[in-house]
């Protein structure tokens, strides 16, 4: 039951921690001191034990998390086996302190988590949720717009990365297709043999 005592004795220290986590984060970097204090009053500090799920794939989500301490594994279910019982979690990436994840659910109407996030070691996360963003937009629209612009930038970058990856995959698929055709019809490589 450590968390009960933590709340009382280490509040000041933690508030400083949260402020520095927020001010170093890409989404909140443009906020001034006052706006940062407002954001600080709204975010939630969450602690997770090694192996504990932060959220699971296909669950509905309402916000994002910034890693304050520890590492988080992002994984997806491998459904290539075809049976639900044999499904395995494949780790896609491991995130470090300062990284953030789940931000897409801040802007989606009904967001479904596309991956599972699990604490790879004991973690301290700063949670920022849709209701907090709405509260900031209500009380300080300037701060809200700054965050939303940054969020749009992140989502745009992710979209570009995904588009690049899809283009790359398409290119690879085309090449594989061409190679398959060549192996089926060797005349395409040595037409003079005809």
């Amino acid at each position: 039951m450590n968390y009960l005592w933590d709340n009382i004795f280490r509040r000041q220290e933690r508030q400083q921690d949260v402020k520095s986590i927020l001010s170093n984060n890409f989404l909140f970097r443009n906020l001034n001191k006052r706006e940062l204090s407002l954001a600080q009053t709204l975010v939630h500090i969450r602690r997770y034990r090694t192996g504990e799920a932060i959220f699971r794939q296909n669950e509905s989500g309402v916000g994002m998390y910034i890693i304050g301490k520890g590492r988080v594994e992002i994984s997806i279910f491998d459904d290539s086996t075809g049976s639900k019982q044999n499904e395995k979690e494949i780790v896609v990436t491991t995130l470090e302190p300062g990284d953030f994840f789940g931000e897409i659910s801040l802007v989606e109407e009904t967001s479904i988590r596309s991956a599972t996030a699990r604490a790879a070691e004991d973690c301290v996360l700063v949670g920022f949720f849709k209701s907090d963003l709405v509260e900031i937009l209500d009380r300080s629209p300037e701060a809200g717009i700054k965050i939303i612009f940054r969020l749009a930038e992140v989502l745009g970058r992710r979209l570009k990365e995904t588009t690049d990856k899809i283009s790359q995959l398409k290119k690879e698929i085309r090449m594989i297709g061409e190679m398959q055709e060549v192996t089926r019809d060797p005349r395409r490589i040595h037409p003079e043999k005809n």
Partner: protein
Amino acid sequence: MILDGSIQKKIKRENLAKLFIVLAIITSGLVAILAIPGLLTSFLLAFVITYLFKPIIVYLERKGVRQIFAILLPFLVLGLVISLASHYIANLITEQATSFQTDLPKYINGFADTLKKPTNALSKALLPYTKVDVGERAASWMQNYATGMIQKIPDWISQFLSTLLLAPFLAFFMLKDGLTIRRSLFSLIPNNLFEVALNLSSQINKQLGQFIRARLLEALIVGLVVWLGLYSIGTPYTTLLALFAALTNLIPYLGPIIGAIPGIVIAFVNHDSFGLIALVASAYLLAQLIDIVFVIPLVVARIVNLHPVTVVIVIVVGSQIMGILGMIISVPVASILKLIFTEFYNHVVDIRS
């Protein structure tokens, strides 16, 4: 990641312990509110003030006013308006209430007299079998009821004053420290239920705020239309009757009927012409028409997600448990319970799938 069984068990145990603590805190809070007389009303009134002031405070903060001043300002303005208006309105209401109290026997007897004619006719027709004395019975019942009510007035006033003094204090701290208290409570919620609880709380908050604002706006419009109508007709006790109509309008379906009864009875007993009685009734009807045609479809209907039959059942249950207060709060409470049930049901379905 392959999880050690003992770690999983430990996490589960911790989550259960946290859930137990949260439920214990919520339950003991609710028990305290229900057990201490008047505290529930104070809390409800504080919620109403909080939800009414929140948009004003947000607006002021948006304009750059510091949070503490943005909270204090509406309280100061309200205090000033109440102290200025109470001088006039309280006098007016006291005057009308005293006059109504003096005239009450007249209305009761008048009502009994009005019932005498049909009762006598009925008695003549049924004479060989039974004696019908509806008028006398109604008069004695009304006399007892009215006397009981008048005797209870000092108790009500003292209760009302303590509630009235406590509610703004509670509302002030709800507005000032609400977010901190909410965050502390949420820090105790187990990780596996955290996002569900957070989502639920923001939905409840939004729905409750909209509901309270919409119902008060509805009551205000109904009160104003009734007051204008009765004032232009020249009915006595206009302010008292309009206030009563506005307050009873908070009770869905039954409220408007209860609210119209005193005005119509007064017009009836005063032996006003049929045209005048019809005018009084039409003032109430006009208020209801405006309410049904404009206010309910535009403001209220979007907020409450309950079937009309459920609403009626819920009101009846509310009245059985807590009387008039139960009738007023039953609909939002049922709406919140439905929200909680749906959210947790969806969460369980999510996990299973």
